[in-house]
């Protein structure tokens, strides 16, 4: 790990201001992704701003009937919160399907949103990777791409967004709230929060430099059956090959976001009117424009079948 200087801050604006003072500085929340990457020197911030004790660790109902989740709420507490379990079961299920008990105790809401890809070539610093070293090339496209993306990718990067929580949040129409060093706030809807790679796969979100995530806002609950179905190589403690986050209503309408296939949680609102016609029609529309590799074209069928399983479960 490269050396770094370290500071603790007490408020969100202080955190953003500290980041503005030191170019290349990084916020440290739980640390479960950042430290992992720092050990491999994939990330090498010269300065660490520890935001672990700035508050933002509450879950509060909003006057409009929604739920405001503080950026520092840990994944265990979020999954176990009584309102989340009752009204946003999809979110509990997605969190509980991710990582391990130890990691969920430490991982935070904001850190989880910003976790970086698990592309094996991104992790192997001997390999070419445009995300790790912009402009260097992509070893994955002609390499082992079984786990990688089939849609939304580019000829510069085919990595996926690896997380579970954000897939559920996308189906729940979540908004990410932020603050900058001047105290200015922004609300970024999750559907445009993650960028597609294009020629700049190292730019992953629309957050500005030094912008701190303060919370995630969920709109009022929409009812329905909540299902998070994660398909992976082991029954537990593995990243998704494909995951389906679904809210299905009695009349067959619903919302579906898919994880494990794209650089961001993949949801196409325009395809959802096809849900009552079944998984095949819906998946065909959802995956229009997919460009899988030979090694990961199995994901096309896997998405359709996982959606079919979810629709089937929702009807029982």
């Amino acid at each position: 790990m490269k050396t770094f200087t370290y500071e603790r801050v007490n408020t969100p604006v202080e955190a953003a201001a500290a980041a503005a003072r030191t170019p290349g500085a990084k916020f440290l929340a739980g640390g479960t992704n950042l430290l992992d990457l720092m050990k491999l020197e994939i990330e090498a911030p010269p300065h660490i701003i520890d935001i672990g004790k700035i508050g933002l660790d509450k879950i509060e109902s909003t006057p409009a009937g929604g739920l405001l989740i503080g950026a520092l709420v840990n994944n265990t507490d979020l999954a176990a919160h009584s309102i989340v379990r009752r009204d946003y079961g999809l979110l509990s299920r997605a969190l509980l399907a991710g990582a391990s008990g130890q990691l969920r105790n430490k991982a935070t809401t904001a850190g989880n949103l910003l976790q970086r890809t698990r592309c094996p070539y991104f992790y192997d610093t001997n390999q070419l990777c445009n995300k790790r070293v912009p402009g260097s090339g992509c070893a994955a496209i002609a390499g082992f791409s079984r786990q990688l993306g089939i849609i939304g990718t580019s000829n510069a990067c085919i990595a996926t967004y690896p997380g579970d929580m954000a897939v559920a949040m996308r189906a729940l129409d979540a908004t990410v709230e932020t603050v900058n060093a001047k105290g200015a706030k922004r609300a970024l809807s999750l559907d445009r929060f993650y960028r597609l790679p294009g020629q700049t796969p190292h730019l992953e979100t629309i957050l500005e430099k030094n912008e701190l995530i303060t919370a995630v806002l969920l709109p009022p609950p929409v009812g329905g059956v909540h299902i998070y179905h994660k398909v992976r190589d082991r029954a537990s403690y593995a990243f998704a090959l494909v995951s389906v986050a679904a809210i299905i209503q009695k009349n067959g309408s619903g919302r579906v976001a898919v994880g494990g296939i794209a650089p961001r949680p993949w949801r196409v609102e325009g395809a959802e009117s096809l849900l009552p016609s079944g998984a095949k029609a819906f998946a065909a529309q959802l995956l229009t424009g997919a460009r899988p590799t030979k090694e990961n074209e199995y994901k096309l069928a896997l998405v359709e079948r996982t959606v079919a399983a979810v629709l089937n479960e929702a009807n029982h």
Partner: protein
Amino acid sequence: MDESNESTITRREMIAATTTAVTALAFSGMTGVQATSIQHTVPLSLAQVSFTVNGRAQSLNMDTRTTLLDALREHLQFTGTKKGCDHGQCGACTVLVNGRRINSCLSLALQHQGDTITTIEGLGTPDKLHPMQAAFVKHDGYQCGYCTPGQICSAVAVLNEIKAGIPSHVSASLLEKPVATNMELRERMSGNICRCGAYSNIAEAMSEVAQKQA
């Protein structure tokens, strides 16, 4: 092995001393000018942290990069906690922080200002085993023993999590209180890998403790 004897050199110190000697030899082959110009180009960054480990207050001044795991093992000699993968994947480094289990390898020691940390050494002693330690012995919940401190810390926390009503991936309902079934225990322990494959015995040890607590 008596690790408290200050006059004996541990294997680790032995390796460190050897490395220094080899480095010195390599440098002495260089010209004087080069040899004197070799120094740390990046200054070490030090910082202070205070926390409680197994009931005793500790205050450390150390390299900012030190993980909680390395602080426990290398600075405080609580070597019960083990380093396996050092990337949060195996669970050998599991300790309890303010009563909750975490991977101590993926946490900077500096993140734990004011925290209360319990390692395997703080759970029980050879004369007075923690019930979970006793159950692991009774049920052969290990073979080589390397993952065991992490397994036991995790197991203790798992039963507390179930008691606190925290659901898991295999809980059929999010709204009912979870029960310590074999499936629940296995799912909740999936962050602790055992390469000897003692999993079924670990689950049995945990079941016994869960039943006694109920």
